[in-house]
């Protein structure tokens, strides 16, 4: 449907349809983010022997995140005197905007997708890389030593983890012969989910994705016990909210990507095809999000230098080996 619209002539009608759809998607994601934050707090509470939010908005603290967002929005806008003002204001925007841009290529079902790019996966990686610039800017512009250290850590970490992230997916690209996310899912229809074919890649990808998302055990950029709050130490109110929002939207995007690449996207389990694809997608996706939250409840944080070592000395060679192995298998067994 969206594809037809994209190819039709540009008119006011088409534009407004597009605009409305984009706004709808925006609200779907924002809705997810508020629910994801609530879910994270509830699951963490459950795992840590406490309740989590319980009062705002009825029984389960359903409106807790909404209340938090409202509070952040009406909070006084503070900019430190010594900060680099233009950069300070620009940084959250630069960190935040790409997180929504990547959502465009992610197919939620076989029909619901905004842009069916041939280089969908590459687009995702390229755009999400921009967020680092925002973090680095925030770290620099705050004129705070903790922020600077946090920003530097963030940049170093995300750059080094992007490489194993991409490398681990190359095996899948070899098997499916495409970078298009739609095609990748369709290949899995015939061959079975790629988690079965590419278990090593899955593990590498999952670890690298957790690092990309800046989540425990790789949340060094904002390690509050060492760097107070890392690159957003000086941020408060809605600017801080933007960083947080970007983080959770990325969680959405990355979980969706893992679902698409390894868990067969909207494809159903055998004999359960009568359940619609969107439900399957949501289910698999929720499992991935749950595992990420589970990580947070379990692991301590890795040390900065060990983190870099792990990326370059362990993950990257494993990912490269996986490509080699996949190529061999494809050459000799799948021809």
């Amino acid at each position, binding site marked *: 449907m969206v594809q037809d619209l994209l190819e039709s002539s540009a008119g006011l009608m088409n534009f407004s349809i597009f605009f409305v759809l984009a706004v709808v998607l925006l609200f779907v994601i924002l809705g997810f983010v508020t629910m994801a934050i609530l879910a994270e707090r509830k699951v963490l509470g459950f*795992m840590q022997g406490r309740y989590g939010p319980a009062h705002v908005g009825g029984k389960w603290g359903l409106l807790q995140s909404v209340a938090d967002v409202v509070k952040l929005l009406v909070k006084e806008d503070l900019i430190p005197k010594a900060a680099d003002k233009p950069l300070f204001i620009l940084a959250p925007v630069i960190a935040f905007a790409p997180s929504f841009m990547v959502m465009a290529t992610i197919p939620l079902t076989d029909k619901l997708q905004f842009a069916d790019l041939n280089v969908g996966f590459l687009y995702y990686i390229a755009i999400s890389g921009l967020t680092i610039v925002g973090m680095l800017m925030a770290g620099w512009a705050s004129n705070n030593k903790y922020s600077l250290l946090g920003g530097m850590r963030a940049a170093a970490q995300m750059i080094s983890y992007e490489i194993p992230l991409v490398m681990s997916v190359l095996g899948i690209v070899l098997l499916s012969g495409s970078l298009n996310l739609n095609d990748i899912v369709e290949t899995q229809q015939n061959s079975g989910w790629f988690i079965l074919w590419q278990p090593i890649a899955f593990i590498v990808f999952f670890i690298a994705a957790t690092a990309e998302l800046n989540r425990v055990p790789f949340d060094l950029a904002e390690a509050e*016990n*060492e760097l107070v709050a890392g690159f957003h130490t000086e941020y408060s109110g809605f600017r801080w909210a933007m960083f947080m929002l970007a983080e959770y939207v990325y969680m959405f995007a990355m979980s969706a990507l893992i679902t698409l690449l390894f868990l067969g996207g909207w494809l159903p389990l055998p004999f359960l095809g009568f359940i619609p694809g969107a439900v399957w997608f949501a289910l698999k996706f929720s499992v991935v999000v749950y595992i990420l939250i589970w990580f947070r409840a379990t692991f301590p*944080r890795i040390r900065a230098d060990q983190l870099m070592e792990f990326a370059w000395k362990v993950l990257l060679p494993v990912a490269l080996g996986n490509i080699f192995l996949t190529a061999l298998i494809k050459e000799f067994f799948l021809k």
Partner: protein
Amino acid sequence: MIRTEEMLLNVGPQHPSTHGVFRLVLKIDGEIIVEAKPVIGYLHRGTEKLAENLQYTQIIPYTDRMDYVSAMTNNYVLVHAVETMMGVQIPERAEYLRVLAMELNRVASHLLWWGTFILDFGATSPLLYAFRDREMILNLLNELSGARLTFNYMRVGGVKWDAPEGWIEKVAEFVPYLREQLKGYHQLVSGNEIFLNRTKNIGIYTKEEAIQYSLSGPNLRSAGVKWDLRKDEPYSIYDRFDFNIVTRDEGDVLARYHVRMGEIVESLKIIEQAVQQFPKQGEIMAKVPKIIKAPKGEAFVRIEGSRGEIGCYISSDGKKEPYRLKFRRPSFYNLQILPKLLEGESISNLIAILGAVDIVLGEVDG
């Protein structure tokens, strides 16, 4: 070569991981610490000077506020010093209550340390588990003394309150419960690869250095020195219990972790035995005068607190207030080795090393 510049970084007094109002002035090159200078005194309340104008019983609440995580041992060291000067014989039941209170408090203190230490590495769950179990101890001590942290429980000659009905049974039930929980603690943290990577071979000092820097408590025992006042200079009724001194030879952060975890187990052993031997009847206060006057002279006693040796020196001129009172506060002495340990370490290790020293700022600043 890249030209690098040293940066001055002020850690604290308001920083999430300094466990109070502790300040460290760091000279860092990148993330490597070139020089570390601890600054203390933000919580100084002049306990020792105030004590010179207070009667002995009035000083006890002040000792609660020194090491507020393990107030029972502080209570004890003061009354123990006065009792030594006066030569008071303490009733059996009071001694058992004291030992139970002190050991429960030691467990609570180590649990709090365990939670916050792991929290420093960014894991949030252990803190909540530790607090859940510590809460049960605090409830027990609350029933005993009427307070959760600042107990003000011991008096010269005995203890203020007798154990309420059923209290001993509750303590007896708590011991196996915590033993079971400890298994879970070890499962969650002790074998965790990330945790081991962050604690092994970090912040090492040798036996000799530990003694030179006057370290005590778990910090000393983690370097392989077998020294525990409960065993080596038994006070109160500690010679009646069968327990081991936990030591480690590595002298690194992980060793300090294991020593403290082991001490929880040993304390539970003592509690178990004390519950079994607990006298059914008996006085909880010795016959002491209404207004306590220490005889002219001086005395120094030391006991094994949760963080190390707590000493109390009293110089008396026979009045109802001490002429001079001095506490040896173990956190303060344990902190001395910090600048040496931090040199050349990264900021991430700073958190691990500082956390492993286990300081309570109320005690450091006095």
